[in-house]
């Protein structure tokens, strides 16, 4: 139990009468990189947001680093200082410089001195390759740079776990690679990571485990290479085929995903955290990705 970072038991989440998560059990150990994949509206992002309680679960229990965060008496702010989160839309603070973004919570929450916080911030900016942009405002950076700043901001709190919510989905295709490279380095350095992603190549090459979700349940959970290249369930096989080979979708299959799309749309309507529809041309196949997916 000592090396368990995340433990989820019987997690349910509903938005009104829309049942998004239908009983999730998941355990993540220290230094493990777990990628969560699945169709839009399958509940991946909601699951991730339930881990650090940005969404209040309807039922079930979640432990983070040995603390039960679903306990109403827990000091959530304290637990969250150990958990970094990276959002699809970056969510940098636009009124602060890059350095200001990285030092704000260090000073306010961890009580570090300004000098100490700046030293930590500059070290992390160096790590994401943006040491020279410390004084820029977020609006002056490209999407890829903003997302790397967001990662550095989370790392500046010295987290024990990093959560990534589709970190590359809002990026121009040629900028995806920079962000994935930073995440790969982070994984190599031994960070415990939970990554919701559509980048199948990243999931396969960097992930230790891949969790395939559909319609609010975990359909498949196994070693990364096995789930991506040799899925054991039919639903995972269909999903992966469509994602990895979008040009091979058969005319007979047209409209098969409409049901899940409707579910995704209604989740968007309620949840308020907008998924961007996946880019045409597909995930994983991005040519600029540093991790190429070989043919199989």
């Amino acid at each position, binding site marked *: 139990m000592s090396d368990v970072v995340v433990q989820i038991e019987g997690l349910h989440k509903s938005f009104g009468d829309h049942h998004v998560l239908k009983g999730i059990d998941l355990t993540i150990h220290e230094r493990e990189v777990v990628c969560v994949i699945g169709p839009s509206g399958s509940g991946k992002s909601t699951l991730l947001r339930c881990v650090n309680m940005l969404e209040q679960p309807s039922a079930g229990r979640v432990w983070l680093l040995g603390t039960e965060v679903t306990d109403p008496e827990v000091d959530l702010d304290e637990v969250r200082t150990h958990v970094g989160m990276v959002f699809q839309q970056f969510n940098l603070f636009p009124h602060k410089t890059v350095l200001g973004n990285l030092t704000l919570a260090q000073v306010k*929450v961890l009580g570090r001195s300004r000098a100490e916080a700046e030293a930590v911030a500059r070290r992390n900016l160096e790590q994401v390759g943006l040491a020279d942009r410390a004084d820029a405002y977020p609006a002056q950076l490209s999407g890829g740079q903003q997302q790397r700043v967001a990662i550095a901001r989370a790392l500046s709190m010295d987290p024990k776990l990093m959560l990534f919510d589709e970190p590359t989905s809002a990026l121009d295709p040629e900028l995806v690679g920079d962000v994935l490279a930073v995440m790969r380095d982070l994984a190599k350095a031994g960070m415990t990571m939970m990554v919701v992603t559509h980048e199948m190549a990243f999931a396969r090459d960097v992930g230790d485990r891949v969790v395939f979700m559909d319609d609010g349940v975990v359909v498949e959970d196994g070693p990364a290479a096995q789930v991506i290249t040799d899925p054991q369930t039919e639903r995972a096989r269909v999903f992966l085929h469509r994602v990895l080979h979008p040009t091979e979708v058969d005319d007979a299959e047209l409209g098969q995903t409409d049901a899940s799309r409707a579910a995704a749309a209604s989740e968007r309507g309620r949840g308020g955290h907008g998924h961007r529809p996946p880019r045409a041309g597909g995930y994983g196949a991005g040519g600029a990705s540093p991790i190429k997916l070989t043919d199989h």
Partner: protein
Amino acid sequence: MDFLIPFMQVWVIAELCVAAVMLVLTALPHFYTTAAPRTASLTLGLVLLAYPVGIFIDKGTGPKDPLPVALGNIFVVYLPGVLMAGAVLLAVVTLIRRPKVTTPKRGLKRSDKRAIGRGLQYGLFLALLIVVVIQMNWDYLSQRFFTVAALREAWPDQMIHALLNTLKYTLGAFAVSLTLGMILALAKLSSVKLYRYLATGYIELFRGLPALLIVMAVAYGVPMALGIRIPTLALKAAIALGLVSAAYMAESLRAGIQAVPKGQVEAARSLGMSYGQTMISVVIPQAIRIVLPPVTNEIILLTKDTSLVYLAGVTMAEWELTKLARESVAEPYGGLTALFAIGACYLIITLPLGFLVRRMEKGFGKARA
């Protein structure tokens, strides 16, 4: 027309002729080859046409008070002279610089019609202005509104004093409005139902009542009801006007806070920041930029609402601008001159404010996502 009588008839005929020529040239498809001279030609034609019209309109209300002679000479004689010279110059230069071979075209092109449309808008606006200026009762106006002697008593001591009083009441009321408005806005966004109800009730009440009533209530009602004495007029003004303004302020601030994307709160909370820290360091700084324009509006409205302070009973030392104007209007001669001067004083306060806010908004541009 009192001025230059024999000369005037020649002038009117000349104006009519030049105007007719310019209008005809505008309508010719071949004469002008670009848009700008065509627009200018039409505008000049309409403006020159306005002079004869303005001079010969008879409202049938007896003798008009003409423009003062000096002003009349400039406006009715020299200005149209310059305009006619300009029109002739435009026509001549166009004629000389016309390309030798013109491609034949039938009728007016699209760009010609656009030029004419623009010329019509400029020309009609200016023509109307000219007719109105010529027709106005200038003697009456100058007596009632521009008798500098009438200001002697008020200028400069009383006026500056009143200006400072107006500023003092405005700033006091703004301080109350901003503080109370922020509390109300946060109450309205609170998760505690009681706070939401109280804030909504307050806003609906004070938004719906005339400021005049609130000023009287604060000045006379509250002291009697509670047995307290509000010591100074400035404090009464700040409380009364601040209470009313806070209702509007609260709605502006709430809208500003809600306009900050939800992701900002999530990002701050996921870094371990508390609700209070998130509001102070992340949400409110961004909301301030959003609410700057509506809050400026509120300050300007407050500036003008200080004219209600006289209802609380003012000594002469406490007069603000409008009270001074009312007293000055009662002076035996000079009529409404004081109103005019006081109006200018209000603009002295509000115009720089608008300018300052536009500058601040530009400054924020850099940090806008």
